[in-house]
């Protein structure tokens, strides 16, 4: 604070403090009452037997020990991780590819951008209902177009062995890929963010690379990707947070995660534990495990993108 001008009177900084606190006063309540206290309370509850109807009762690590052997929890955790492992890389590749295509200087760029963004506007519940209709095994439009493709594959590649079109949301094997497809449809948000990042890459870098005889692919790999790596990181972290908290869409498809619990995700079990079974302490323990997973994955993604920046490519 060496360069700060002397204000001369103590009243000035006192007034600044008063003004500052007055302006942020709603946030003192919001941050303290609706964030910091709940975070602390939730950690405490996670070590308690708590039904919200009675005061919380300390049981030590009991909830966490129970979770370790709770098959439903392990199943829902596995579902969530499998979904994230499928959806994140797919989302990254698709949104980045779309943004790169949009950034080639094609005509109607902003029209295309609007089109890719439109699905983002569809509320989650409506999105789930719409795709249940598209994936419908009997009358669904998707399988209608898939059937001739599968027939062609069967005839020319499999020597006539028939392949049935997947039952999508009614087949435990295909339910998660179906959700991934739904996720692909809403990459528009990331596309817009990537595109903004791409437009910020200094043009002279490309020109220099071109003078060195770099091909289009080489320029993407050695100029574009390193230059937008902070944006990739941001989208990746947002993707992790979103994928691990996936709730509304599978809940609308089936509150019990049918078929065969293949769509029963961790946030759904958490919700059920808290509000159906009133096991609030148990639910809080789950929430902390979820938080730790998000935290670790975020750190990992930081490390990963860091490496890519330094060494350029795989």
């Amino acid at each position, binding site marked *: 604070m060496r360069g700060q001008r002397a204000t001369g009177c103590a009243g000035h*900084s006192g007034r600044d*403090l008063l003004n500052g606190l007055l*302006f*942020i006063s*709603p*946030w003192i*309540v*919001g*941050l303290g*009452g609706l*964030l910091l206290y*709940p*975070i602390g309370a*939730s950690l405490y509850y996670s070590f308690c037997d708590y039904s*919200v109807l009675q005061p919380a009762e300390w049981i030590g690590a009991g909830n966490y020990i129970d979770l370790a052997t709770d098959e439903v929890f392990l199943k829902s955790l596995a579902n969530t991780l499998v979904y994230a492992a499928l959806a994140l890389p797919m989302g990254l590749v698709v949104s980045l590819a779309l943004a790169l*295509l*949009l950034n*080639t*200087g*094609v005509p109607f760029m902003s029209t*295309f951008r609007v089109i*890719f*963004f*439109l*699905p983002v*506007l*569809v*509320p*989650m519940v409506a999105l789930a*209902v*719409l795709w249940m209709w*598209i994936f*419908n095994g*009997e*009358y669904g*439009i998707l399988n209608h177009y898939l059937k001739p493709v599968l027939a062609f594959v069967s005839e020319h590649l499999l020597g006539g062995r028939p392949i049935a079109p997947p039952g999508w949301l009614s087949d435990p094997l295909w339910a998660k890929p179906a959700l991934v497809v739904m996720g692909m*449809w809403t990459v*528009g948000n990331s596309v*817009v*963010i990537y595109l*903004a*990042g791409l437009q910020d*890459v200094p043009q002279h870098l490309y020109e220099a690379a071109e003078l060195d005889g770099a091909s*289009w692919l080489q*320029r993407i790999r050695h100029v574009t990707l390193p230059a937008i790596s902070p944006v990739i990181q*941001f989208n990746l972290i947002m993707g992790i947070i979103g994928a*691990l908290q996936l*709730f*509304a869409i599978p*809940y*609308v498809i089936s509150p019990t995660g049918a078929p065969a619990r293949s769509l029963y995700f961790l946030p759904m079990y958490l*919700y059920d534990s808290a*509000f159906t079974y009133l096991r*609030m302490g148990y639910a809080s323990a*789950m*929430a*902390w495990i*979820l*938080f730790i997973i998000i*935290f670790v994955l975020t750190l990992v993604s930081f490390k990963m993108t860091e490496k890519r920046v330094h060494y350029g490519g795989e």
Partner: protein
Amino acid sequence: MAAKSLLGKLLALLALSALSVTFIAPLAWMILTSLKPLDETMSMPPKWLPSSVETIQWENYVKVIVDKDRWDPDEDPVPPFLRYGLNTLYLVVLGVVGTVISNALIAYGFARIRWPGRDVVFALTLATMMIPFPVIMVPVFAIFRELGWVGSFKPLWVPAWFGSAFNIFLLRQFFRTIPTELSDAARIDGCSELGIFWNVVVPLSKPALAVVALFHFMYVWNDFLGPLIYLTDQKMFTLSLGLQFYQSQHGGTEWNLLMAASTLIVLPLIVVFFFTQRSFIQGISLTGLKG
């Protein structure tokens, strides 16, 4: 990066056109299904268009909105779907007004006034963005239960009046770009901090405030978990919760009505989007660049 060759551009244009069709198709399918009579939704093979102009069922929309089966005028003079819409609108208005006012004030306190401890509180604010909602879900529910707010709209709009880390961050970044000379000049003219906020910073920040308002509108319209936790009375359901309820009751059968209901829920968002496209896209770009 502009692809130099004409061929490259042409290929990109072709790929983008094909992809656009794929992205639009589900929305088109939703709207077209919503206009068909029930038997045509089950025709094999499926057809995109209703079989003729005469079979277009605008009545599907009337059926969704009036919904004679579920509407008991003695209990509620407004039919269910409209009631859900009114409830959602109520939450949107209270939430958006609260979000804009509170976050603008808070962000001003962080961006334009220097006070001891400010940077610590701000760092704490940013750190809370990492916390997933389920972590705070139970204690916040317990608080609202203590206050007797469960089953009311309050848990769904009151928090908006107390700021949110993301919006504070977004607005603070924007407020910091406004030259301090403007504030200083106003201060010399005898303006109070509140006067500077209102007369100098707010008028120059309209685009950023619009983005915050838009995002919150989207959030409330979309929110499912909040209403699911706090709303118990069907008459108080929001559109999202109402659609889920409708689908769990009629799902798997009357797809034309479900698609009409979905279209009605999506439509206001698309209309708002088309009027505010620029600030929308700019706002989203901003989240990534400054994040």
